[in-house]
C-alpha cells in the first residue's frame, strides 16, 4: 500500500475502500471464492477481481443461510426464541443466551440473583476460551497446517463441551439461560469438574503458544497482513478482538459492567499493528484473562437461588417500550433490540450480529494482498455464518 492510501486525514469518503489501479497488462480475472470454499466455514461467497495474484476488488455475498430469524421470533413468545438464539453463533450459544436474556431483563427491569450471575460469567468465559482456541485453530488450518493445531484446540474444546453437556444437556445448543436466572443449578460435583478443567487450561495455552507464537511460518504469513487502522475500525463499527487488535481499548465487559463483571480483576489485551498476527495474539491473551476471571468466579461463587422468585414465567407480557441490551460475545458486540407492544410476542426483535458487521471492512483489509492472504484475513475476522445470515 502506498503512503497516499494510508493517510489518516479525514477527507470526504475516507472511510470507503480505496480504488487500486491495476499495474499489469490485460484484463482483471473475476472469480467467485465460495460458497463452497473450505475456508469460508459454511456458505459464504466473495466475488474477487484479481490482477494476477493481487486483489483489486472484493465484494462479500451473503444470504445462503438466511432463515429470517427475526421474523420467526416476532411470531413467537419471548421465551420461545431462547432456543433459537443458540443457532445464531452455534459456537457460543451461551453468550447468545445471555445477550437475549439481558435485553429482556432490561425491558422488564428484571433482577438476577447472585449465584445465577456467577454461573453466567463462568459459562460465558468458558465459551470465550473454546471459541478463541478453535478460531485460532481454524486460522492456522487455513494457513496450511492441516489438522494439528486445530486438534490441540478441539481437544480442549471437547472438555469444555463435556462440562456444558453435563450441566445443560446439550453440547452446543445449550438453551440454558432464562429471564431472571438460569434453568438448572450447578452441582458441587460440576463445580469441582470445572475447577479441575480450569486448572488444566493454563498449561494448554502455554503449549499452544509454544507451538505457534514464535513459529517462523506463522510470523511470516501473518505479520503486516490485513492491517486495519484504528480510526477506520471504530468508524466501521468493528467490535471484539478484531477492534482491540487495532489498539482501541473497548471491551463491553469493562464499559457496561453488565452482569457482575465489575467484581473481577482482568486486563484488556490490545494490539499494536492491527494485523492478522495481532489478532491471533489478542485472542491468546484474552484466553489467559478469561482463565483469571474463571478462577475468581469459581472461588467466590455463593450459594443461593438461581432464579429470581419474582420472575414472571407464565403470561409474560412486557409493558410497551423498547430496550437494547448488549454483551461482549467472543466475536464482538452481540446486541438484541426489542420493542414490546404489550402482547406476548415482541413487536420487533433485532439481533445485532457482530460477525456480519465485522465483515464490513473485509474489502479494505484485503485490497492489494494476494489471494492466499484473503483466506487468512477472512479467518482472522472469526465469523460464524449462522450469525452472519441469521
Amino acid at each position: 500500500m502506498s503512503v497516499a492510501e494510508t493517510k489518516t486525514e479525514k477527507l470526504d469518503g475516507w472511510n470507503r475502500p480505496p480504488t487500486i489501479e491495476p499495474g499489469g497488462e490485460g484484463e482483471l480475472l473475476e472469480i467467485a471464492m465460495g460458497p463452497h470454499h473450505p475456508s469460508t466455514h459454511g456458505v459464504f461467497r466473495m466475488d474477487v477481481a484479481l490482477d494476477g495474484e493481487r486483489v483489486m476488488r472484493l465484494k462479500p455475498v451473503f444470504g445462503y443461510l438466511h432463515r429470517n430469524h427475526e421474523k420467526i421470533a416476532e411470531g413467537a413468545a419471548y421465551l420461545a426464541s431462547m432456543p433459537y438464539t443458540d443457532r445464531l453463533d452455534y459456537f457460543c450459544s451461551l453468550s447468545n443466551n445471555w445477550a437475549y436474556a439481558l435485553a429482556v431483563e432490561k425491558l422488564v427491569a428484571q433482577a438476577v440473583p447472585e449465584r445465577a450471575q456467577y454461573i453466567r460469567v463462568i459459562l460465558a468465559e468458558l465459551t470465550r476460551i473454546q471459541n478463541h482456541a478453535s478460531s485460532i485453530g481454524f486460522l492456522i488450518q487455513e494457513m496450511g497446517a492441516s489438522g494439528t493445531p486445530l486438534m490441540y484446540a478441539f481437544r480442549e474444546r471437547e472438555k469444555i463441551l463435556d462440562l456444558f453437556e453435563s450441566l445443560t444437556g446439550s453440547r452446543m445448543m445449550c438453551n440454558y439461560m432464562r429471564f431472571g436466572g438460569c434453568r438448572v443449578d450447578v452441582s458441587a460435583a460440576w463445580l469441582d469438574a470445572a475447577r479441575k478443567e480450569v486448572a488444566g487450561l493454563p498449561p494448554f495455552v502455554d503449549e499452544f503458544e509454544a507451538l505457534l507464537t514464535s513459529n517462523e511460518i506463522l510470523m511470516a504469513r501473518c505479520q503486516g497482513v490485513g492491517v486495519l487502522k484504528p480510526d477506520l475500525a471504530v468508524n466501521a463499527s468493528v467490535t471484539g478482538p478484531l477492534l482491540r487488535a487495532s489498539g482501541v481499548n473497548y471491551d463491553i465487559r469493562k464499559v457496561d459492567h453488565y452482569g457482575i463483571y465489575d467484581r473481577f480483576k482482568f486486563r484488556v489485551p490490545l494490539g499494536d499493528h492491527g494485523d492478522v498476527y495481532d489478532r491471533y495474539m489478542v485472542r491468546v491473551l484474552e484466553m489467559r484473562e478469561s482463565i483469571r476471571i474463571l478462577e475468581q468466579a469459581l472461588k467466590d461463587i455463593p450459594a443461593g437461588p438461581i432464579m429470581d422468585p419474582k420472575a414472571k414465567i407464565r403470561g409474560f407480557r412486557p409493558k410497551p417500550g423498547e430496550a437494547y441490551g448488549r454483551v461482549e460475545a467472543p466475536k464482538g458486540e452481540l446486541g438484541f433490540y426489542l420493542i414490546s407492544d404489550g402482547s406476548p410476542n415482541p413487536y420487533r426483535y433485532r439481533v445485532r450480529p457482530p460477525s456480519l458487521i465485522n465483515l464490513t471492512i473485509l474489502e479494505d483489509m484485503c485490497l492489494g494482498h494476494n489471494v492466499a492472504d484473503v483466506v487468512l484475513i477472512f479467518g482472522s475476522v472469526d465469523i460464524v455464518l449462522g450469525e452472519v445470515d441469521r
Partner: protein
Amino acid sequence: MKTVEEIKAAIQAAVPGAGVEFVPNPSPCAQHSLRLTPGRAVEIARFLRDDPELAFDFCSNVTGVDWLDKETSEKVKVKRTVNKTVDGVEQAVEETVEETHKHVEPGYLEAVYHLYSMAKRHGPLVIRMRTVNRTDQVELPSLTPIWRGAEFQEREVFDLYGIVFKGHPDLRRILMWDGFKDYPMRKDYVDPDDYEYEPTAHDAVLKRAQAHQAAAEK
C-alpha cells in the same frame, strides 16, 4: 453523558432549524430516543460524531421497524335537528345521535440507529427517522457516509423493509437474492403459497393457492 434532552438542545444550537423531537421510552431501561426530520439528518449525524463532547463515533446498531396503518374509532355524540311529526304537528326536534368516527393514521417505516461513543465510553443514544408512508415515499438519507458501520445494516434494512437510503454507496439486496420482489420483514408480508418450485398437492397448500388465484382473477 448528557441527557437526551440536553443533546436535543445541543443539536438545535449547532444545526439551526433542525427538526428534532424527543420520543420517550416507557420501559424501565429508559433509553429515550430522538426523532430527526430526514432533511437535515446527515448534518445532525456529522455533528453528533464530530462534536468533542458528544463524540458518538460508534454506530452500533441500525435497524428498521414497520408500523402499520392504525385505525382508531371514537364515538361522538352529535346534535341534529330532525323533522318529526309530534301529536300530528310537524316540528323540528333536536336529537342527540351517537356517531362513530374512524381515523386512519397512516403507517410508516422507521429506521433506528443506536450510537455509542468509544472515545468517551458513553451511550446509547437512539436516533430514529420516519418515512412519509409505507408505499411510495420510503426514502431516507443514508448515514453510511458518516458511519461506515451502517453500510451492511442499511442494506439489510433496504432488503427486508424496503427503506431506500439516499446517498448509500452500494444499495443492493444483501440477504435475499436480487430477483426477489417483496420485503419479508414487513408486517403485512404474505408467505408464498408453497416454498417448492413445483406446487405440492398438500390440501392446505392447494386451498391457499386457490384462494389467492380466485382473488387475483376478480
